[in-house]
């Protein structure tokens, strides 16, 4: 306590569960497990997921299965039957539904997600616990994790049921005397991020608006990149301003063309709407097991899925019909 014995009033506190922030724990992990050397990090999706995604892990990803998301890595997580994951669903799509149908997740920090009967049924069966945040608050908690601080002040969520069911606090700001919220940092155990280009060391480029790829990579203990394209490291060094993520944040580089399929990587290929409809119908009809069998379990890899389930002809159409490349690749 200060000589003057000053204190800051805690006006209110949420009662939700959350991963307790531990900036020094994050630092020790980085010191002991993250490689500062330029080493070749290319590996298969099988190796990356088995090495860096543990049961019970807190998993974050960027963006989502609709747009520039790590769909192939998510399917590998399902294929390896990972369990009890805690998912950060900051503007996710039906990613959360897939992982729930695969039995992989038991908790979700939700900003927004596409919801159907799979998630509703899992919640009612007690298999899935939801923690309500918002897209922005989750992106911001990742920023706090990326800054290496235990919390950040936030000027929203206060007064809502989101606050009440969260790990947020409402305090009296010692500078203005006004009420301000604090939200706890999150340092995911692993981040799955799909990028446009990277080199073998993990120096990565992302084109187009992001959600929070930089904060997510910085905040996470392990970072698995799937990439549409692996480029020469010389190219990275010729244009340092084009780099989104530096190599030392990254643990694995998985070469995954069409890695967001059935979603889009703007400028490269459009989304496969027929596939999205097939998924929607499967959920409505309660046939997610069949859907997963067809698209995940019956194929050994992303490449095999593309070859045997999508087919080169469809892939060519998806590329050909993504005619708008301005700002991304031109």
């Amino acid at each position, binding site marked *: 306590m200060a000589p003057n014995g000053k204190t800051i009033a805690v006006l209110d506190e949420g009662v939700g569960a959350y991963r307790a922030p531990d900036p020094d724990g994050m630092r020790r992990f980085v010191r002991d497990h993250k490689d500062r050397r330029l080493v070749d990090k290319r590996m298969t999706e099988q190796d990356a997921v088995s090495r860096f995604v543990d049961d019970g892990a807190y998993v974050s990803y960027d963006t989502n299965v*609709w747009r520039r998301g790590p769909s192939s890595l998510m399917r590998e997580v399902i294929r390896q039957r990972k369990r009890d994951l805690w998912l950060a669903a900051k503007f996710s799509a039906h990613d959360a539904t897939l992982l729930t149908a695969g039995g992989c997740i038991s908790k979700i920090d939700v*900003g927004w997600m596409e919801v159907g009967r799979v998630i*509703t049924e899992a919640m009612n069966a007690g298999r899935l616990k939801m923690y309500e945040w918002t897209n922005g*608050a989750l992106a911001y908690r990742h920023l706090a994790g990326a800054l290496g601080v235990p919390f950040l002040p936030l000027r*929203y969520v206060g*007064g*809502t049921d989101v606050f009440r069911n969260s790990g947020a606090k409402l305090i009296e700001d010692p500078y203005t005397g006004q009420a301000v919220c604090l939200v706890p940092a999150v340092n995911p155990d692993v981040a799955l991020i799909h990028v446009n280009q990277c080199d073998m060391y993990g120096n990565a480029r992302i084109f187009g608006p992001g959600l929070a790829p930089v904060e997510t990579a910085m905040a996470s203990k392990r970072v698995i990149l799937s990439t549409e394209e692996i480029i020469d490291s010389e190219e990275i060094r010729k244009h340092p301003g084009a780099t989104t993520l530096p190599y030392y944040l990254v643990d694995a580089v998985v070469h995954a063309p069409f890695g967001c399929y059935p979603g*889009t990587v703007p400028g490269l290929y459009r989304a496969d709407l027929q596939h999205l*409809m097939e998924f929607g119908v499967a959920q409505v009809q309660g046939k997610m097991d069949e859907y997963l069998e067809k698209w995940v379990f019956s194929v050994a890899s992303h490449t095999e899925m593309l070859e045997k389930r999508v087919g080169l002809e469809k892939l060519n159409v998806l590329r050909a019909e993504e005619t708008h490349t301005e700002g*991304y690749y031109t």
Partner: protein
Amino acid sequence: MTAALTFTTNEAAIVYTSRLMEEDRLYFVAIGGPPLLAILLAKQLRTPKIAYVVEDGTIAPEMPVPTPPFMVGAGLASSRAVAWTDMNTVDFHAGLGYLDYGVLAAVQVDEYGNFNSTFLGDDFDRPARRFGGPGGATEIASLCWRTILMTRLERRKFVKKLDFMSSPGFLDGSLGARERAGMPAETGPYRVVTERAVFGFDDETRRMKLLAVAPWSSIDEVLGEMEFAPLVAADVAPLDPPTEEELAMLRANIDPTGRTISGDWITLEDAGGTLRRAAAEPATTNA
């Protein structure tokens, strides 16, 4: 009697919302959905110089019309922006006061403009119906100067008590309630738009106030569709139905894939100069 006009409840809300747009202002929307369509419609018909910022970090894009299918997954939706940033950055711009209006869709709303995007039921962990979650609505409704909500006028949607308050309106309606909860000063809900009525909020009590009603409906019908009793303006204005021009633009250019063809069909008949509603039919809803 001749059928004058046919549209869906969703189309009506989009049209009415588009008419609220103020030229030269900056709008904040989530990725896709009726709020964005309302802004795109307004840019085409009335206020070409409004700009909008999208939750994903896209700043002031110029989406081509007809708009691309599957907007949330279309690179074209971000095209011709002045900047591509990220979610935190645009939230900070809102926090700094740059974003005048937020436009949002709500599942449930109460008399102080608080709303629910999370679930229906009495047990959060075992929802009767689960929705997508707050998404960007909470930050948008907290940080923009004014918030415009879009929803349908139904008793289960205009409720005395929300099943879950995902996002803030005026909270308990007391003076300074938002500031006491940590939100920026002088912000809050501005309008609530439905297919047949538009509401504002009373400056003194911060309670919802009925401002306008569609000619084919009535104040009584509107109040009958609400669980709570809103204030009623001294001069409730008539809400002109969507025009042929508005519907044509919406259907041909703003939503060519027909995602707004949901809710119920409303057909208006010309009954000797006054518009009267024909029997309602459920709409063919697309995925």
